[in-house]
């Protein structure tokens, strides 16, 4: 109970600081540009911390360690991809995107290609990706609160939604910038401090009789363990074993000692499995069953290789298409600052990702039971107290819980701001009041979906939104920024084909997971196919419709690429929503006859 109090206390502290910083940030926010892009006046270092804070979501904070625990070394491609994706974004997108002067992704599409049709398609996909990313955040928040305090799972998601919506209502982008910057450092501390302490404990010897991870055998329980499944799981057994089960196994009733021969077992919800010390650990289907496969890379054969490359494609190229990441870049003062911000983010991300990897490895020695229940996302939360069942463990556990909570808050607020920005400017008239309505709407839809949809690993759902972003916005941005030949027809075709393929393959994966898992991995990891297809479609259709190329394409590209001191940049949010005074300033800044476009 004391542990719950510690955790609950720190979570409340995080929530309170979030409110406080949000209030401080939003005191002077009252115009649409304030809400959309924080007036584009965020200094690079603070912006970088805010971006990192927003980017390191539940998938990074909890998911990476969980995947390392479950899948071993091949899971390291997630943090690598999340970081390298940022590099790709910096190389190809950051500075020109900022110079485009757009305030949302659909607005960029219209600024570049001058088509309101394309804008509508982009709006659709931004909302898709945003909500797809938001739902697992809220679900993981439920899991976290449930794990640390035993409160019902829906409460966590609801709590995060309320805090985020209230904060964003107050000041939009301006309110959340300071909050997210704080939350990055909070998260870094919350994962670094436990890692240092637990790693020291680990070096002192596991002390719990666990065999080292490089012991050539299947993983074995080092003490008697009882596992209650929270939902139906399929377990693989490779070594004959004895255990005691109470509940549903393979559709039949099990009560008492059973003997499992190698094979796959379906264990129903709420079943209690009791293992003796030294018994092999049955793992959820699809994970490596022995230490050798866990420890060594690329042991999954050609299909494993395909999955790795597909993941590399999705994450390397998907980052630049994530609306909540892009929208933060619009808050930089100019293109050069955008580039510097991105570089700073690379350093902050690299600093962070060392820690979840270490925690994931250590947790394999201490928390093998999570491999049975499949709830590996909880590894980081449970590890401190499992290793240190005393006050230190309780405090560290509370710190981790607070960090996880900060992760949900910062990512969710970024997503809510970006989706609400698009909804308010593209579907509603775009006044501050509309932004507030859009915020409430986004929050309500997201929490509704989070409660209805089934839960899966945070990182996997996130990987799916990366695949969608990589197959839709990545080609649009890269071609739009660097290639004069792009037309709006080609862009729409690429979005529809790329996005359609990803959504279709996900639908097939979901159907197959309910009907026996027959779909090959190309459907669950489609990026390696869909990204090139989407690029090709855009190029081909643009060539066929080259008459529809915007006439002022040269001026537009000039604006994207001309160095900032020449002063070509023109902020579209001021043009559309600014006060008369701001508009006059904008017109006065440059010789007006150069801009004859409306």
């Amino acid at each position: 109970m004391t542990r719950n109090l510690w955790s609950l206390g720190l979570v409340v502290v995080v929530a309170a600081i979030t409110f406080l910083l949000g209030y401080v940030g939003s005191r002077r926010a009252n115009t649409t540009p304030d809400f959309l892009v924080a007036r584009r006046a965020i200094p690079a270092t603070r912006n970088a911390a805010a971006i990192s804070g927003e980017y390191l979501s539940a998938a990074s904070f909890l998911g990476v360690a969980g995947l390392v625990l479950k899948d071993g070394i091949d899971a390291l491609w997630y943090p690598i991809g999340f970081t390298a994706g940022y590099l790709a974004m910096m190389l190809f997108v950051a500075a020109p995107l900022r110079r485009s002067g757009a305030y949302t992704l659909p607005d960029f599409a219209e600024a570049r290609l001058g088509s309101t049709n394309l804008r509508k398609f982009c709006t659709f996909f931004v909302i898709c990706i945003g909500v797809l990313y938001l739902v697992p955040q809220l679900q993981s928040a439920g899991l976290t609160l449930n794990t640390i305090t035993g409160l019902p799972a829906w409460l966590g998601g609801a709590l995060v939604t309320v805090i985020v919506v209230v904060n964003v209502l107050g000041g939009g982008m301006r309110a959340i910038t300071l909050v997210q910057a704080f939350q990055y450092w909070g998260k870094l501390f919350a994962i670094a401090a436990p890692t240092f302490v637990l790693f020291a404990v680990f070096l002192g010897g596991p002390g719990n009789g666990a065999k080292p991870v490089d012991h050539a055998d299947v993983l074995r329980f080092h003490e008697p363990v009882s596992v209650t499944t929270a939902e139906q799981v399929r377990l693989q057994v490779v070594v004959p074993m004895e255990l005691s089960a109470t509940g549903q196994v393979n559709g039949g009733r099990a009560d008492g000692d059973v003997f499992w021969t190698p094979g796959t077992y379906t264990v129903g919800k709420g079943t209690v499995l009791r293992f003796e010390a030294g018994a092999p650990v049955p793992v959820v289907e699809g994970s490596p069953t022995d230490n050798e496969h866990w420890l060594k890379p690329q042991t999954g054969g050609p299909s494993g290789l395909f999955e790795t490359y597909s993941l590399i494609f999705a994450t390397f190229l998907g980052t630049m298409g994530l609306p909540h990441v892009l929208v933060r870049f619009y808050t930089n003062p100019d293109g050069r600052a955008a580039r510097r911000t991105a570089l700073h983010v690379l350093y902050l991300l690299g600093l962070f990702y060392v820690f979840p990897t270490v925690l994931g490895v250590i947790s394999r020695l201490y928390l093998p039971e999570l491999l049975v229940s499949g709830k590996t996302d909880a590894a980081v939360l449970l590890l401190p107290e499992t290793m240190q069942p005393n006050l230190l463990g309780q405090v560290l556990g509370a710190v981790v819980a607070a960090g996880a909570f900060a992760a949900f808050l910062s990512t969710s607020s970024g997503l809510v701001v970006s989706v609400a920005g698009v909804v308010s400017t593209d579907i509603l008239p775009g006044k501050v009041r509309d932004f507030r309505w859009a915020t409430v709407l986004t929050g309500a839809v997201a929490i509704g979906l989070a409660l209805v949809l089934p839960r899966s690993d945070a990182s996997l759902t996130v990987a799916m939104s990366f695949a969608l972003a990589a197959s839709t916005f990545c080609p649009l941005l890269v071609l739009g920024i660097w290639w004069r030949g792009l037309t709006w027809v080609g862009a729409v075709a690429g979005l529809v084909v790329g996005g359609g393929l990803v959504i279709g393959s996900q639908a097939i994966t979901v159907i197959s997971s309910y009907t026996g898992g027959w779909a090959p991995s190309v459907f669950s990891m489609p990026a390696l196919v869909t990204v090139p297809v989407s690029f090709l479609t855009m190029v081909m259709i643009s060539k066929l419709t080259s008459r529809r190329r915007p006439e002022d394409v040269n001026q537009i590209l000039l604006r994207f690429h001309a160095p900032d001191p020449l002063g070509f940049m023109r902020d579209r949010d001021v043009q559309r929503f600014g006060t008369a005074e701001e508009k006059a300033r904008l017109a006065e800044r440059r010789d007006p006859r150069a801009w004859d476009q409306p």
Partner: protein
Amino acid sequence: MSKHSGPPGQPDQPQPGERDAWLPVSARKNRRRRVVLADPRGRGRVLRTIIELEEQTSVGEKLIRDLIRQQLRTAAVLGVGTLVLLGALPLLFYLVPAVSDVEVAGVPLPWLLLGVVPFPLCYGVGYAYRRLAERHEHDFVSSVDR
């Protein structure tokens, strides 16, 4: 122009109209002005070439095309290089499983290659790109001032 005189959202923007607002419109253009190029704070102004660039005269267009090509080449070389470097790892592990048995300071080599090395690598590439891209822009600003 001092830093705080700009509007809050655009601190780095030059505002030509401000200083000579008292002059009639026709006189503003002809007034002598001191042009500072590649000011370290990024506030230079090169009016003549700007107009040349905007109107896409052949010179202006060639200049900007070259800049875009140069920036794209830099980004592509660095990006593809990183991709090849990192992308070769899964294939290496797949084709030469013996790599997994090598240990460095007690840690298997693949764990170091995947868990630690990519992060400084990404930062290094990003740093190089920032340097190069800013140099190209600096050169561009210098070259338009002839």
